[in-house]
């Protein structure tokens, strides 16, 4: 060893030594210098987990969104994205609306600016996971979001648990997201198959009676299968309805003629369409072409943002649907009014439920982080799991600690006739707001096992 030092020292100038020493000294000192700013009191003794604490070293913290901007769910993805953008803007400004949901937010979150990174997932699980992985590697994101397809939500759930990075879902209607595929690191704000079925089921039975025949249209992935099952279970068990056919189509189907031919020959009285996004628009338009509509009564158990705008209100008039949010709730909830106004001012249209879901998801996350006083993921998770009641755009809500599902109402709407519309976005009439508690299955019914904190 000494021989090596001796030999090397000949070419090692005093200047190099000073530079190296200064560098070494700085590298030893810097983490502590940063530590004073990055860690909240009590964070210093916590072991690193996921991207933490690398994610909170700078002035800005990053959130990664993998959202469909192309493909069958592109229209809904853009709306969601606007909700997140508005929420980030409100977090950074300390907007009064956001502060009603998250009172401890000042300007930014725990003294840091929040920045949203966006990638197009095309509603494909593999692409969404790949993009979030890139965000983790390159930007040390501390929160993931995105999904307009439950296939993406379930994939990102598992990825979040593996990477120990928090994930709040975008739109995800599958029972599995907070059921058998639930995770400790994932949280869902919006309604889902079971709550939709239990909310719209009684309305259908009351309106149309018992022993009716229904044809289902189901997109071929976790969302479609679980929503169809929940709705069919409710109607068959409680009112003796029969599923005469279930037409399962892949996500992104363009021509539904072969499915509709089967439905036309099925003898059904109701068309319960679980298809979503562009699939729903096309299947409904084509059902009209085939004369299935208005011969059969259309039911949309899981509302699709912009459906009425795309198909035209003639096709959605009289249609019953269950949804998460509709802008006319502004008449009932003050926070909804503030949200709709802020959104309209920025984007020049009234938000759909996807945008509301995105906004609320981030506002709730900001609340949990600011209440916990730390970005340390297990602390934030435990804050969610306290199950505290807080205000939202649909009244008071709380998280269920056993499956990380928000307990929130489901809104029942019916399509308005064009002649009844008060403005060009007045497509739906709110019939009922069903409280969440009564709609949810027991926390263990769908096999949720959250997994570890660390």
């Amino acid at each position, binding site marked *: 060893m000494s021989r090596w030092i001796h030999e090397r020292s000949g070419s090692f100038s005093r200047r190099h030594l000073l530079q190296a020493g200064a560098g070494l000294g700085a590298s030893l000192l810097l983490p502590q210098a940063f530590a004073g700013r990055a860690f909240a009191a009590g964070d210093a003794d916590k072991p690193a987990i996921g991207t933490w604490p690398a994610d909170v070293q700078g002035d800005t913290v990053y959130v990664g969104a993998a959202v469909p901007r192309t493909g069958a769910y592109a229209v809904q993805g853009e709306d969601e994205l606007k909700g997140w953008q508005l929420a980030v803007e409100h977090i950074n400004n300390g907007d009064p609306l956001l502060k009603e949901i998250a009172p401890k937010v000042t300007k930014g979150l725990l003294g840091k600016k929040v920045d949203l990174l966006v990638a197009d997932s095309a509603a494909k699980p593999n692409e969404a996971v790949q993009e979030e992985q890139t965000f983790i590697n390159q930007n040390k994101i501390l929160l993931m979001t995105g999904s307009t397809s439950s296939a993406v939500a379930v994939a990102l759930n598992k990825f979040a648990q593996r990477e120990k990075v928090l994930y709040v879902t975008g739109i995800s209607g599958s029972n599995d997201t907070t059921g058998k595929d639930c995770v400790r690191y994932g949280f869902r704000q919006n309604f889902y198959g079971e709550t939709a079925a239990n909310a719209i089921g009684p309305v259908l039975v009351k309106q149309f009676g018992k022993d009716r025949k229904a044809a289902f249209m189901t997109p071929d992935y976790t969302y479609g299968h679980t929503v169809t099952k929940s709705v069919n279970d409710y109607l068959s068990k409680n009112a003796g309805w029969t599923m005469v056919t279930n037409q399962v189509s892949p996500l992104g189907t363009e021509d539904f003629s*072969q499915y509709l031919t089967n439905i036309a020959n099925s003898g059904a009285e109701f068309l319960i369409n679980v298809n979503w996004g562009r699939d729903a628009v096309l299947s409904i338009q084509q059902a009209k072409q085939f004369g299935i509509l208005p011969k059969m009564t259309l039911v949309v158990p899981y509302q699709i943002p912009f459906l009425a705008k795309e198909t035209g209100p003639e096709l959605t008039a009289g249609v019953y649907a269950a949804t998460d949010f509709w802008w006319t709730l502004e008449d009932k909830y003050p926070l909804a009014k503030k949200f709709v106004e802020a959104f309209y001012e920025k984007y020049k249209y009234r938000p759909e439920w996807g945008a509301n879901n995105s906004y609320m998801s981030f506002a709730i996350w900001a609340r949990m982080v600011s209440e916990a006083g730390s970005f340390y993921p297990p602390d934030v998770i435990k804050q969610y799991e306290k199950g505290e009641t807080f205000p939202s755009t649909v009244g008071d809500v709380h998280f269920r600690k056993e499956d990380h599902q928000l307990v929130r109402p489901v809104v029942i709407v019916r399509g308005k006739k064009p002649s009844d519309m008060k403005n060009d976005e007045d497509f739906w009439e709110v019939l009922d707001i069903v409280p969440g508690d009564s709609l949810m299955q027991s926390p263990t019914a769908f096999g949720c096992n959250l997994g570890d904190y660390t």
Partner: protein
Amino acid sequence: MFNWSNFVSQCFNGLVLGALLALISSGLTIIYGTLGVLNLAHGAMFMLGGYAGWVAFSVTRSFIAAVIAGGLFMMVVGVLVERVIVRHFYKRPHEDQLLVTFGLGICLVELVRFFFGSLSKSVPPPAPLVGITPLGFMFYPTYRLALLGIVAIALLALYIVLYRTRIGMIVRAGIEDSVMVDSLGIDTDKVFMLVFGIGAMAAGFAGIVNAPVVSLSPDVGEAILVQTFVVVVIGGVGSFPGAILGGLIAGEIISITSMFNPAYSYVMLFIAMTLVLVLRPYGLLGTAGRE
């Protein structure tokens, strides 16, 4: 559950579905057969034709104007694309051709998304073709019935151009042996430009006549492209009659399978393609040696 009325309905539906696939595939197969370029922008051209037609419809409210605009606009786009881009790739490896047309497709789709957004655009069928027609075994959308006739006429027109004109003879000769055609002193340069234009026009025409059935979005060509490739492979690469036969077979497979279980309709389509590749590697009406 099997019932005859549904079976007949599905067979009929398969015919309509197949006719449309045949029309789109014919453009793809003519271009590949003559130029040796596999045009991955074909789906985007189908989409762009639809949007061109939609713009014309919005201005004139005439469906016929929309169809003419969709077809002609794509012919012009096709000629321009061939002159400016594709021409430089004839002598380059197939991978380069795939990449450049794939990239072109993405550009076209995103340009349309930029200008028109992602919300669906509808083109209603002309007034006499609105509504449903009773066929005895089922009620069928009148426009889809008419589509069968529209596509048949378009395919007949393509047939006449390819089989009854001098230019068609050159094109077909080019498909069989392009080196020999060149050696005979025929200006293949112009022929190639024209063929690409005709292929793009077929895609654009299909795009606009399909618009009343499937409303437009920037991604409308994506799924079609995959199905079209399957049709071309089944029918035989470069074969015009093959594209028609392949289209009809694909339409029937998709429709009839979906009667039993819709989830398997595309699986069956790919199984059929695999069988064709195993038993007749050049496709049902393809010939060895074509490139």
